[in-house]
């Protein structure tokens, strides 16, 4: 495979994972907040939408960012674009 093709693939995969994670981010934030009143069933003692706003969404954000870092670092290595520090 030509290196150029390899790089184009790398960029496409990057775009796909970015779009997917942004979608999760959007649903966890605006989706849950929009339907907050319908999602107020009890969740370990919390009303679910309150828990999402106070902790759940934050956890999901951490996971999104952590997953992205892990996935991209692996992708870098696979596509031979990883940068070395020192």
């Amino acid at each position: 495979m030509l290196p150029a093709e390899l790089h184009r693939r790398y960029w496409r995969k990057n775009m796909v994972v970015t779009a997917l994670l942004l979608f999760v981010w959007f649903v966890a934030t605006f989706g849950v907040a929009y339907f907050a009143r319908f999602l107020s069933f009890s969740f370990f003692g919390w009303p679910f939408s309150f828990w999402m706003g106070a902790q759940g969404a934050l956890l999901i954000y951490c996971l999104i960012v952590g997953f992205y870092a892990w996935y991209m670092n692996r992708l870098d290595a696979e596509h031979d674009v990883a940068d070395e520090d020192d």
Partner: protein
Amino acid sequence: MADFFGRREGVAHSKKQFKSQLDRVYRWFTLGFVVYVLLLGGLERLGMPHSWIGMTFLLSTIALYAGIGIMTRTTDAAEYYVAGRRVPAIYNGMAIGADWMSAASFLGLAGTLYLTGYSGLAFIMGWTGGYCLVALVLAPYLRKFGQFTIPDFLGERYGGHLPRFMGLLAAILCSFTYLVAQIYGVGLITSYLTGIAFELGIFLGVGGILVCSFLGGMRAVTWTQVAQYIILLVAYLIPVVWLSVKQTGIPVPQAVYGFQLEKVTTKEKELATDPKELEVRALFSKRAEVLAEKMKHPELSMAADKLAATKKLAALKAGNASVAEVSAAGKALAALPKDERAALREWAIAKTADEIKSQPLNGMPAHAAQFLGNPDGTVQEKELYDTSRRNFLALVFCLMVGTSALPHILMRYYTVPSVREARQSVTWSLFFVFLLYCTAPALAVLVKYEIFTVLVGTPFDQLPAWVNEWNKVDPALLSVVDVNKDNVLQLNEMTMGGDIVVLLTPELAGLPYVVSALVAAGGLAAALSTADGLLLVIANALGHDLYYKMIDPNASTVSRVTLSKILLLIVALLAAYVAAQKPADILFLVSAAFSFAASSFFPALSMGIFWKRATGTAATLGMVSGLSVTTYYMITTQPWLRTTFGITSPIQLWWGIDPISAGLFGVPVGFAVIILVSLVTRPPSQDMQALLEYIRYPDLKAHDRSFAAPAPRQGRAISHQAGDGL
């Protein structure tokens, strides 16, 4: 000592050595800090006065920050602007945590949650969710680009001075508004901690900021911020954990406050129908009616007030009243409004306050209720529900996009060694921010439980001592009045400002004064660290972007850094001067900074990375139009700005969106303008497109140079990194 924080005098450490050395330094630092607090606690038990403890805490923490600043002083450009690009991801994460946690969020966030319940969660979600945008859209690419400031990126990507200049203006605008709010917070905390005057506190705090950032720039700021993060985390967690143990026996407040929330909700229903509360509320609504009556005939009422006050003074003087009573009556007489306008304004404010206090739960919504109003209720209730939900979503949006575009945060991602570490560093930053932000809602609920179940219903003569102490400091922050004269505290008889909730927690939990001083020192650390970061953005925008890049590209490294330092001094003094004027509405200043950042930077930065077709003209116009729409909406709808600019036309809200979320309109306008103008202007040059290819891949290997032809521009970007010594 001096090489704790990196290479000096030619002694270079490997990355691993450097990291393990840092680990050791900060482990000792944390241990030393804990021992120091315990020691002061011991001295308190031996009878050291409270004001001394406060003063010791204030001076020793400022001295500590200044000490780090002196140890890390530098005149090297790469060290000064980006801390030598060798900050490990985890430490950069901590530094961002401190940079991020401003005085407003350390002191005010839990208070806002206490006062507004679910609506306050918009801040929690907004201020953390923005990091997803940072991680996915901006940080890795900015790091790969790898220069010194955010206007740098705009200038190189879009070509020419105009985009750089717009970026510079926007960076200064949002950082300065934010900076004034931080310095104001510094003044409040120092004067609370030590009892010195507000203005003196401001200048003492600014002294601490200056010694640090003045000498060592980003390098000093980074290592100070790590220390500050540790202090503010310890300070935030101790009282909450203690309160949690006191109420539930479990030391993990974040896990157990759901059950306290349930109890609070039950208690809220009880309080809403409690006969004594109803009595107090009726008294307040009567007061509001009296004021409304007075406002109908201001002249007559003013005369009547004056007559009554004069008569009272005379009666007190005639009857053998104490000196204090007579002087109080005299003061009341002197404090009467001078003219009709002043009187009307004063009464309007009092009337609004009384109206709020005639509502159930002191005007606070039920803590767990999502949005105001009711979707199944009357037309009005339905509309209230829709507006409140729309505003919640708008605020979350603005805070998120604003978070991802604030230059003092983005700049920190230039300091890590690689793109890889930049991504990991966002994860660490969000984790450290998360630690604090998932505690704030717990703090609010636990404090509410304590106040609703323990404090409310206490006889007035048995109230804890701190209630009266705070009453003396500032009645607007905390005051209690026995309105219905039953000698028992009702919820609506208490007035509490959101800003003191965090400062109150140690006293509510029954902890010694040293913990209160610790919390105040934590608030100070939060304010100082954010102020440091912001100050650096402004000074670098002027010194690096304006002077070096636009006016004199041949300036030597030393003269550039020196100029940045001088500008830093001037900006700090200017901000201190503005803050000492006590500009109204600090919370508004903070949120305005977010809307400014969101509407000016986010469209230009993200389009610049993801759309090759975006042109310089389009980006400049996009920044101008986004910022203008946001500013226009703010000026025409925000009460304080309306009076400042003398706008008298009726307030026209667009779709009922509050001025705090003005960025909601600026961001889409910015995007639309960039897209439309790009399509009608000439596409960016080959060079520019090659630069884009360059920043999209962490490292294109040598055998593939043909793919991204190394243009002169890139060559410079690369040599910058190499030349300034990685």
